[in-house]
């Protein structure tokens, strides 16, 4: 397209107008700015404008030693901080060819699945709130609080956990950990049907969600969406299945990857609800037989990676997180790149939203489960 036509395309007609959704807006859950071109209530174009919470994490990584990088990754997708930590730790271990003990693998996986559940609970809470049902907020946070308590007891932090380190985990699990996780699963199994009673079967909720923000399988692949968003469109993309890591590589864990074909907001919602059930299944298969072993393999005081490129993928609550480390053999990396799930998922928003109503955009953003620091880094 030539320049003239480009100008013409970007000019809006006189019956359209622009509004800024964000950087301060309740539905963006952070400092995301969406430039909306609207005709009455109907959305003509969505242009996400990033950079309001850019902290230069990838650049900072180039000046930090490898154990320090893990601290920064907590602040990317703060709702699945353990998965981020694990991704970096796995990449470093892969480079150093350290084989961590089975105990570490089990604990990492259990904590990772707990993180996923906590993230999905927070997502469920705020999805209800975005659609105007404020009660779900308190139900979701009630149960998430219990997971945070378990984390606090074991690693001293509730949100930015810093639990994985290169070669293992920072502390052994607390003596109450196993019992509390079991109690929590019993609790959540009784409470998840309550979630369904409040939102899932509700007529208004289904009307708001079904057929909204449809993303076909082909589009899902071409936009590179991952995680629950991809699964709702029928793309099997679970890294835990495709390229197993930690305990998934060690043991044949029996869990389903929930797949839907509609690709609308409602199926994205259902995928996440199903994932909570599957996470509980995974934990139940692991929690009773955590093997004994070292919690941390010895590493050198100053970790230096061999020359080369290293890549590790993990499945966070939002989708596929890729960690790319380019090392030139020094104590800090030459280049670090994070392939964050939120960024790719957000890129599909314009495609989904065009032609729908303003209220639908909120439902779409809610079911994309955007965490803005993950998009911006």
């Amino acid at each position: 397209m030539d320049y003239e036509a480009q100008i013409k395309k970007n000019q809006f007609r006189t019956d359209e107008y622009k509004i800024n959704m964000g950087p301060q807006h309740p539905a963006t859950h952070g400092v995301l700015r969406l430039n909306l071109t609207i005709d009455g209530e109907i959305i003509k174009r969505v242009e996400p404008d990033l950079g309001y919470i850019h902290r230069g994490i990838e650049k900072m990584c180039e000046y930090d030693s490898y154990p320090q990088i893990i601290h920064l990754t907590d602040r990317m997708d703060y709702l699945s901080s353990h998965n981020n930590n694990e991704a970096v730790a796995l990449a470093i271990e892969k480079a150093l060819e350290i084989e961590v003990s089975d105990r570490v693998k089990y604990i990492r996986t259990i904590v990772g699945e707990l993180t996923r559940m906590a993230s999905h609970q927070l997502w469920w809470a705020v999805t209800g709130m975005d659609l105007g049902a404020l009660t779900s907020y308190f139900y979701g946070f009630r149960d998430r609080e219990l997971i945070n308590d378990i984390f606090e007891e074991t690693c001293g932090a509730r949100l930015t956990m810093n639990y994985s380190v290169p070669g293992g985990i920072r502390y052994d699990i607390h003596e109450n950990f196993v019992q509390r996780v079991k109690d929590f699963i019993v609790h959540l199994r009784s409470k998840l049907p309550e979630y369904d009673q409040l939102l899932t079967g509700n007529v208004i909720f289904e009307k708001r969600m079904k057929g909204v923000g449809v993303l076909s399988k082909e589009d899902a692949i071409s936009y590179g969406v991952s995680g629950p968003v991809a699964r709702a469109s029928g793309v099997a993309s679970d890294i835990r299945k495709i390229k197993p890591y930690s305990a998934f590589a060690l043991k044949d864990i029996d869990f389903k990857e929930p797949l839907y074909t509609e690709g609308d907001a409602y199926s994205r919602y259902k995928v996440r609800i199903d994932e909570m059930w599957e996470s509980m299944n995974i934990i139940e298969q692991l929690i009773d037989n955590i093997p004994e072993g070292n919690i941390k393999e010895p590493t050198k005081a100053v970790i230096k990676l061999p020359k080369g490129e290293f890549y590790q993928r993990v499945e966070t609550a939002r989708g596929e997180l890729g960690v790319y480390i380019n090392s030139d053999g020094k104590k800090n990396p030459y280049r670090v790149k994070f392939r964050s799930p939120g960024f790719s998922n957000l890129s599909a928003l314009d495609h989904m939203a065009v032609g729908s109503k303003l209220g639908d955009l909120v439902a779409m953003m809610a079911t994309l489960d955007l965490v803005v620091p993950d998009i911006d880094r």
Partner: protein
Amino acid sequence: MIIASTNNFFTEIISFFSDGLGWGFGGEILGYTAIAVIYLIFFAVAGLYLVLMERKVAAWIQLRIGPNRVGPWGLLQTIGDAIKLVTKELTGTIKADKFLYNLAPYFPIVAALISISVFAFGESFQVFDINIGIFFLTAVSSIGVIGILLGGWASNNKFALIGAMRSGVQVISYELSVGLSLLTMVLLTGSLQLSEIIEVQRTGGWLIYQGHIPAIIAFMIYMISGTAETNRAPFDLIEAESELGAGYHTEYSGMKFAYFFLAEFINMFIIAAIAVTVFFGGWLAPFDLFDNVWFLQPVWFILKVGMIIVLMMFFRWTYPRLRIDQVLTLEWKYLLPLNLMNIVLMAIMVWAGFTLPWPF
């Protein structure tokens, strides 16, 4: 003279000032002013305590305790909030249309306060018993939307404008359903006058019982459209906070915001009070308890209104919000045809004498 009944409580106030003190016409004016002040105080307090009640009901549904710091059980919380709002600086936008912007908050509150004047709180507690009571109520209570439209338009804010336009569309549509469902009941009573509607129910039982099936349908339609009239969830698209920030009152602060806010709660009282008068026997005691003694009549009335309000609060804290096209589809494709059929059904029923007599 507006006040008809002889042993009316409000008539006695006026006659106390005009005849009792011997102040003549001046005393009459003073009496009316006294009544107005009583009503204003009552509804200011009622509005404030409805806010508190909503917060307590919300807390109850949401596994919380709710306000419990200011006064015993948080009873003074909303009083404190009101004092804060009154003493707050009034800020506004430079580019707003000053005159309309300042005028807008008065429409909802004035409309709400005018419409409360016709309610019968008891046999002897009614200021203004006009023969077109129901018609007057629906007419006056819809003036409030002008304030919302003006506020959204004059704020010079796109979010406020979207909220105001949604409000205009929604309130005008649902006005129809409110009117028609009340009309269904008027077929049964044969009168628009509130005191006569209650008189019909004194001998024949509450109208929701007399009119059975069509009355229950009318009540459901009335509650749905009444909730939409007050702009409350699940019809709160007007101030949909996750979509529009605060909607039409985004640019309002302090007391101007409080007028909008208070009007919403008084409107809720009005909708519930109409429902009680038309469907649940107004101030009549259930099963003629205590022989409908006069000083308990306002208590019964307020109790019934309270129960309807709690029902509306349950809606708000349980349901998600509808989308604007769904709101209009619900009204024009479902409620309106159902309502029209219901009127015909009620007319046939009244003509054929299928109403239920009381007692059985």
